[in-house]
């Protein structure tokens, strides 16, 4: 489990369900499977170099064959690859193939949900369900490639998997919260947030009420884009407003720190000029600067964490927010990438196998789980090696709406894991 990482590739296929016409194909290796070396600015119709057409045809064919017999083919495994199919609104079929070690159906299913969410976000549900002109749709979908590629690639965030919003805890949250609410009112919208490298610092109440997947996708999108001073992007909210576009406005207050607004026709971008921003945010300059290092760290400087902790994922399943960091004791092995990978796999394992389903996932199952007399509250795992006393420790704890996952160094005594996790969860509880 400890060895997965950069090995393996994820291929994503998108087809029109009725005709089987491929709409696009992306891969985790450098985005476009067709590394369009000639004329990189003229990506015409999607080329499907990553996978031969016959493979794409077969993958779609076997799924359609099942459907005709009223059999829902959802996943398959070969020696080194996991395949997951999913149809959306009987109009779009997404197929994902992953040869990444330790991949799971849960991860791939959620990936497909996010990918479809990304398509709706940038193209709108109407275009995806009433396909009148397939060539035009292909062209429009190009706008979503950047976001989709970032979902397929390695990210520092985990919201794609947990479906909870990646957050950070700022040192002076209430000050920023106040300024944000005031600014949002002045700008004439209820939906506002501050985002640092794709993670939400503070947000207005209405912003927090955004549904899944847009609550995860909007900050993710902002974090995945190259730096711009400001943006005015049309977005469809996959849950809240899939057919009527809204506007996502972003304003880079400091490099890496963006003020995001979701609004209707007003205000125009030009109205949110530097004068207005300075009036509201210049007095907040120090608290804003203090947010900049929070990206990978998530927790305020000086927050007491046990030195054995190498990585941490705290989820609030009702608020649908999470804190994720692999920064503690950053000087030790394993690398941040490895730590993220191990924690992601561990999250998938405890979520798919051990813990009751998360609220909002599959409601009927959740009810069943509540009635079960035995619901696991904690679980631990030693990873990386079979030699006793040398593997990293992983521990998960469920308490009320919170779930804490820790990655600990091999020196951490196994008998103390539960106590350490309980104390850490207790200390983190006021933060999320």
């Amino acid at each position, binding site marked *: 489990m400890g060895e997965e990482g950069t090995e393996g590739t994820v291929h994503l296929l998108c087809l029109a369900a009725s005709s089987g016409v491929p709409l696009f194909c992306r891969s985790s290796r*450098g*985005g*476009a499977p067709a*590394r*369009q070396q000639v*004329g*990189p*600015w*003229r*990506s015409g119709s999607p080329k499907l170099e990553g996978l031969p057409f016959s493979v794409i045809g077969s993958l779609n064919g076997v799924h359609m064959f099942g459907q005709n017999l009223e059999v829902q083919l959802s996943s398959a495994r070969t020696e080194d690859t996991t395949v997951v199919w999913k149809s959306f609104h009987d109009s779009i079929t997404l197929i994902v193939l992953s040869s990444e070690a330790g991949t799971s159906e849960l991860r791939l299913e959620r990936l497909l949900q996010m990918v479809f969410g990304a398509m709706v976000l*940038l193209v709108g549900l109407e275009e995806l369900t009433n396909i009148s002109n397939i060539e035009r749709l292909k*062209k*429009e979908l*190009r*706008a979503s*490639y*950047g976001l989709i*590629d970032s979902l397929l690639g390695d990210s520092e965030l985990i919201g794609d998997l947990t479906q909870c919003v990646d957050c950070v805890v700022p040192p002076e949250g209430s000050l920023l919260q106040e300024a944000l609410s005031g600014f949002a009112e002045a700008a004439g919208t209820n939906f506002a947030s501050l985002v640092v490298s794709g993670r939400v610092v503070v947000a207005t109440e209405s912003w927090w009420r955004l549904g899944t997947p847009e609550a995860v996708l909007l900050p993710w999108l902002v974090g995945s884009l*190259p*730096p*711009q*001073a*400001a*943006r*005015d*992007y*049309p977005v469809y909210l996959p849950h809240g407003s899939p057919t009527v*576009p809204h*506007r*996502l406005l972003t*304003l*880079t*207050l*400091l*490099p890496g*720190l963006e003020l995001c607004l979701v609004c209707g*026709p007003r205000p*125009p*971008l*030009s109205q949110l*000029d*530097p*004068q207005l*921003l*300075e009036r509201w*945010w*210049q007095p907040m*300059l120090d608290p*804003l600067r203090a947010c900049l290092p929070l990206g990978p760290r998530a927790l305020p400087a000086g927050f007491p964490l046990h030195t054995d902790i190498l990585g941490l994922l705290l989820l609030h399943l009702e608020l649908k927010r999470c804190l994720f960091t692999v920064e503690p004791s950053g000087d030790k092995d394993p690398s941040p990438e490895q730590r993220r990978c191990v924690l992601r796999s561990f999250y998938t394992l405890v979520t798919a196998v051990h813990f009751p389903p998360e609220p909002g996932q599959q409601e009927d199952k959740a009810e069943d789980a509540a009635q079960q007399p035995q619901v696991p509250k904690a679980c631990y795992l030693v990873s990386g090696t079979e030699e006793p006393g040398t593997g990293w420790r992983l521990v998960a704890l469920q308490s009320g709406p919170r779930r804490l996952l820790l990655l600990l160094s091999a020196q951490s005594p196994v008998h103390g894991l539960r106590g350490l996790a309980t104390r850490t969860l207790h200390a983190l509880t006021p933060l999320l």
Partner: protein
Amino acid sequence: MVRAGWPRDILPSPCPIGCPAMARPPAPGSVIAPDWHESAEGKEYLACILRKNRRRVFGLLERPVLPPAVAIDTASYKIFVSGKSGVGKTALVAKLAGLEVPVVHHETIGIQTTVVFWPAKLQVSDRVVMFRFEFWDCGESALKKFDHMLPACKEKTDAFLFLFSFTDRASFEDLPGQLTRLAGEAPGVVRMVIGSKFDQYMHTDVPERDITAFRQAWELPLLRVKSVPGRRLADGRTLDGRAGLADVAHVLNSLAEQLWHQDQVAAGLLPNPPEDTPS
């Protein structure tokens, strides 16, 4: 037009010598000292838009800081970058801002703006002015799909930057249409044409005679930029800020020149042109 209030409301100083008419752009180098950025003094000023030899990225709450003794005025301008889809608008703006040019082309989702600061020296008064260019760049399909995008980009713009690619004939042939469509209704706005991927002359689709003919017909400044990636620093990864600036200085200087000149004409500080654009 110098917009009021940020960070200081300034008007260009009167120009003592006669300048050409409004429709005709000023002669290159007549308003802005062309190679000043390479002089010792220029390099000192450039230091405020660099950090450790990289281009500094400024948030909207920030601006270049100069020692109080050399504090200079800032002139802000909005520039709308227009051109056929895939021609490299986003890449050009990234190059001007000293940012990494994306390897893979991703359609721009909507409007995005980029701020570029550029100190330049006025020929006439020997005064240094900090130019603040706000480039507005919008994805072609968003422009077509959403009605509010184009008006937002055109609103109060100070300049139109028309981009074509030397490797894409259609993007060059698209120019006259765009010029009439966009700039026709905004006569007092600076218009400039930029041809990108000029270094790929092996694949050029736009021969020199066409450029000459275009120049004669439109009397617009036409600049060329290369598409080769900028030089890197010793670490092999980060872009060399100074080298990047040297690559785009002619574009930034030319923009500064046109815009400053246009401001003076608009403020009535230059002899009024007898006629508008010859039709």
